C-alpha cells in the first residue's frame, strides 16, 4: 500500500498555456513498497481554449528522476478521439509508449501546429479549432487524438520533470546518493551530480565516486562532471581535472582542456599534459595544449623537449604547429639550430 509522504505546490509551464506562463499544481510524493519514490500530478487530458474537445482528468506518475512511469484514469473515465470515438485498448498502449518516448516527434510539434491557425488568404488567418493537420506517421501518434498526445506528452516530459528532480533531490542521504552513483545508467549519475551541486557537496569520497562513475560513462556524464568540478574548491578542481584528463579518452580530453584553459591560474603544474603530448594524434587537442603552454608562458625545457618530438609527427599540421610554438621559445643552441634546419627544409608550407 502506498504511503503518502508529502505534497508540494509547484508552478509549472506547458506549451499549451496561452494566457499565463505558469500555473500552480500540487505534486504528490509517495514511497513505494520497495522504498523508491514516486510522484504524481493530476492534469487535464487536453488544454482546450475554445471548449470543443472533451477534457478528462488524468493522473500521471514519475519516478524520482522525473522519468514518466504511467498514467491512470478514474474509474468510468475514458479518453476519446475525434468525433467522440473512445480509445481502444491498443490506443491506450500506444499512448503510453508515446509518453515514454523522450524523443517522440511530439517534442518538436508545437501548439499552434496542433490547433492549426492556417493562413488561407492574403493576410487572413483562419483557425481550424480541434482539427489537427500535423503530419505524423502512424507509429508516432494516435489518429484523431494528436491533441491529447501532445498535451500529455508535454506533461510527461516537460517542465514538471525538473520540478520533480529538485524536490526528490532533497530526500536522499549522501550514502544513498553514492549508491546511486554506482549505477550504469548515465541518467542516474547525472541526477546524483545535479543533487550534489545543489547541495554544494564536495567531500573527497563524494568527488572520487563521481569521477569514477564519469570515467565509465564519459559520453553522457563528462559535461555535468566538469560543471560540478568547476564549482568545487580550487584545489579539488585542480587535482581531479588532471586525474580525469589522464584517464579520459580523446573526445573528452578536449572538453577538459577547455575548462583547464579557462581556469589556468588554478594550476600549479601541467605535468600530465607535458608527458602525454608526444603520444597524441588529434590536432585540435595538441593545438589546445600548446595554447595552454603559451598562456602559461613557462620556459620549461621539459615542454620544449616534448614538443620537439612533434616535428616528426606524421600529421603536417601538427608539425607546423609545433614549429611555430618552438620558434617563440628560448632554446638551447643545439635545439635552435635543429629548428632552423627544419625551417629551411619546410618553409614553403609553414
Amino acid at each position, binding site marked *: 500500500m502506498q504511503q503518502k509522504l508529502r505534497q508540494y505546490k509547484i508552478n509549472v509551464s506547458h506549451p499549451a498555456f496561452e494566457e499565463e506562463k505558469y500555473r500552480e499544481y500540487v505534486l504528490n510524493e509517495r514511497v513505494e513498497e520497495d522504498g523508491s519514490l514516486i510522484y504524481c500530478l493530476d492534469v487535464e487530458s487536453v488544454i482546450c481554449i475554445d471548449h470543443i474537445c472533451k477534457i478528462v482528468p488524468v493522473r500521471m506518475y514519475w519516478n524520482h528522476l522525473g522519468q514518466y512511469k504511467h498514467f491512470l484514469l478514474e474509474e468510468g473515465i475514458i479518453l476519446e478521439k475525434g468525433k467522440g470515438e473512445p480509445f481502444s485498448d491498443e490506443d491506450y498502449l500506444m499512448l503510453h509508449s508515446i509518453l515514454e518516448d523522450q524523443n517522440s516527434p511530439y517534442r518538436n510539434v*508545437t*501548439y*499552434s*501546429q496542433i490547433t*492549426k*491557425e*492556417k*493562413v*488561407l*488568404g*492574403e*493576410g*487572413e*488567418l*483562419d483557425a481550424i479549432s480541434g482539427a489537427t*493537420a*500535423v*503530419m505524423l506517421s502512424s507509429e508516432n501518434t494516435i489518429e484523431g487524438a494528436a491533441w491529447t498526445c501532445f498535451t500529455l506528452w508535454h506533461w510527461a516530459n516537460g517542465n514538471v520533470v525538473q520540478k520533480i528532480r529538485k524536490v526528490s533531490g532533497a530526500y536522499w542521504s549522501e550514502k544513498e546518493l553514492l549508491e546511486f552513483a554506482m549505477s550504469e545508467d548515465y541518467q542516474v549519475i547525472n541526477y546524483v551530480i545535479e543533487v550534489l551541486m545543489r547541495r554544494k557537496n564536495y567531500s573527497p569520497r563524494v568527488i572520487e565516486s563521481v569521477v569514477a562513475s564519469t570515467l565509465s560513462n564519459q559520453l553522457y556524464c563528462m*559535461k555535468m562532471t566538469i560543471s560540478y568540478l568547476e564549482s568545487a574548491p580550487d584545489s579539488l578542481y585542480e587535482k581531479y581535472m588532471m586525474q580525469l584528463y589522464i584517464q579520459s579518452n580523446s573526445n573528452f580530453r578536449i*572538453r577538459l582542456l*577547455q575548462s583547464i584553459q579557462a581556469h589556468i591560474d588554478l594550476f600549479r603544474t601541467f605535468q600530465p599534459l607535458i608527458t602525454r603530448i608526444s603520444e597524441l594524434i588529434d*590536432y*585540435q587537442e595538441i*593545438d589546445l595544449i600548446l595554447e595552454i603552454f603559451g598562456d602559461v608562458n613557462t620556459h620549461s625545457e621539459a615542454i620544449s623537449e616534448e614538443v620537439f618530438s612533434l616535428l616528426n609527427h606524421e600529421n*603536417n*599540421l601538427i608539425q*607546423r604547429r609545433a*614549429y*611555430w*610554438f618552438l*620558434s*617563440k621559445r628560448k632554446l638551447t643552441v643545439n635545439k635552435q639550430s635543429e629548428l632552423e634546419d627544419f625551417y629551411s627544409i619546410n618553409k*614553403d*608550407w*609553414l
Partner: protein
Amino acid sequence: MKRREFFKKGSISAVAATVVPINANASSSSNHGDLGKRKSDKWQQLATGKMGIPVRKKELNFDVAVLGGGMAGICAAISAARNGSKTVLVQDRPVLGGNASSEVRVHVHGVTHLKNGIPERETGIIEEVLLHNRFNNPQESYPVWDHVIYDFVTREPNLTLMLNTQALEAKMQGDKIKSARCWQMTTETEYTIFADVFVDCSGDGLLAATSGALYRTGREGKAEYNEKYAPDEPDGWQMGATILLSSKDMGRPMPFEAPSFTLKYEAEEAHKRRKLKHFSEGIWWVEVGSEGDIIAEFEENRHKLMGYAYGLWDYMKNSGKFPETENYALDWVCSLPGRRESRRFIGDYIMSEGDMLGYKHFKDTVAYGGWSLDEHNPGGIENLSEPPSYFHEHFNKVYEIPFRSLYSANVPNLLFAGRNISQTHIALSSSRVMATCSTMGMAVGTAAALCVKKNVLPRELSNDYIEELQEQLLRDDAFIPNRPAVDTNNLAKNVADIFASSTGSGDVKLLTDGVSRDFEGEIHHWKSDGLPAQIQMEWEDPVDVSKVEIKCDTNVNKNIMMLKSSPSNDTFTNTVPIELLKSISLDLRIEGEWRSINSIKKNKTRLIKFHFDSMKTTAIRLKIKETYGAKDAKLFELRCYS
C-alpha cells in the same frame, strides 16, 4: 468582336504588343510627342528678372535599369548593383514596396507555410530587408516601413533611385531595348534612361509591352498545359485588385454613415468562406477582377472597390449583426488598389501548374515558391456566391522556378520578375506572392549584372553560364532547392582540418557541403553547445585569403515579415530572430601568430562577410560570442576566397 478574342491566336495565345500608344499617331519605335520640351513655357522668374524655359529633358546612362520598385524590383536592383552593375531603380510611386508599401499593405507572403504548417522562408535580399525592418521598426508602423525600405535602397552603392517616375515607353534598336522613356511627374521631367539590360518588375509591365515583348492575359484552357484547375476553355478572366482597410477600437461608440460612393454589400448572396472575423485588419476579398482590359478598367474598378470596401464596412457597422464593431472606426483605407494580375510576358519557358504540383526539377532553377494555388474567383466581390479563392491545392514541399521563365523570348535584353513572368494563370495564382517574387527579382538582378560583365544577353547566359548564375545566387544566400553550391573558388572546401570548440548538434564539417539550410529532413548545420564558441580551419599549405563569408541561422522555419496582427508563435516572430548571430570575430594565423582581423559586435544579417586586404595564412578562427537570444549558435556555411 470581344476584346479578349482579339488576342486569341490558335491554340497558343501569345500576343505581340499592339498597345494603343500614348499619343494617337505614334508607334512604339518612334518618338511620338515630347513630354520634356517646354517651347511655349512663359516663365517669368522674379528672383532673377529673367524669362526662361526650364530644362525638363535629361538622359541617364546605366548598365542595368530596373523598372518597378516593389519587392521584386528592389531585390533585382540591389542584386544588380551589388554584383557590379551601375543600376537605376525606377518607381512610379512616392514610396517603394509596391503592394507591400503603406499605400496598399499586403503582407509579404512567400512560402509562409507548406501543407505541414511549416514555413520554408526565403533568404537573400528579401530576408535582409525584413530583418532591417525588425531592427529599425519594432513598432511595426507601415509608414515607417516605407522608409526602412527607402533606407535599404538608398544606402546601396552603385544604385540610383528615381521615385515618382514611370517608364512609359521602350525605345528600340533592332529588337533590343535601347532606352526607356520615363516621366517624373514631380519634376515635370522626361528622362531617357539608357541601359544594356532592362528588368521590368512593374507588374503591369508597360515598358516590356511597348518593346514588343510577347505577352498574354486571361486564363489558359485545361488542354493547353494539361492543368486540372484551369477552366475547360480559355477565357479573359484576370484576378482583380483589392482595397484593404483597417479599423481600430476607439473605446467608445463610433457611429458610421456611409459615403455617397458606397455600394451595398449583399450579404445574403455571399459564400460562407467570405469571412469577416479579422475585419480590423482588412478584408482581402474586396476585389474586382476583369475579363477584359484590366489595365484600362483600373480607374473604374478603383472607384467600385472604394464603394465595395465602404459597403462592407457599412454592413458590419449598421446591419446589427456585428455588435463587436460598435466601438470600431476606420483608421486607414487604401487608395491605391493592390493589383494581382494583368500581363504575363512570354519567356523561353512558360511555367505551369504541372511544374509546380509535380515539383519539377529544372537545371536552370534560380528561384522557388510554395504558396498554395490561390486562384481567386473570376469577378471577385462581383461574384459573391463563389468562394473568394478556390485554394485549389497546398504544396507538400517547395517548387522550383526556372530562369527561362524570367526573360523575354523575343526582346533579347529584357528580363522580368514578379507577377508578370512567363507562366500560366494557374501558376501565377501561387507564385504572385511577394517573397516568391523577390526570389525572382534577386535572380534577374544578378543575371543582369552577369550579362553586363560577360557582354552576353539573358538567353546566352541561360545556355552557357547558368551554373555561374546559380553559384553567385547561392553565394549571396539565395536558396535554390535541390542545388548544392559547388563553388570551386571556395577555399574552405580544401581545408585539411576543421573543428569546433563544442558541438550541440550537426557537424562542423557540414559547413562546406554546399547547402545553407536544413532541408527536407536533412541537416546541414553545426550548432554549438553553449556560447562562446569557436571554429577553426586549417590548410595544409598557406593560402591567400581576403574574404570570409558565413551563413548563420535566422530560423527559416519561422516567418519574419510584418503582419498586422503581429503574431509571435512557433511559425511567426515579431522581433529580431533570437537565432541571429550578434557578435562574432575573425582571426587569421600568420606565421604562427593569431591576428585579429575584424570584429562585428552588432551583426544584422544572415550572410556575414569579412572582407579585408589579402593575407597569406594557414588557418582562420571564428570566435562566436553572442546571438540575439538563443543560447547556442548555429551556422550553415563557411566560405573563404582569395
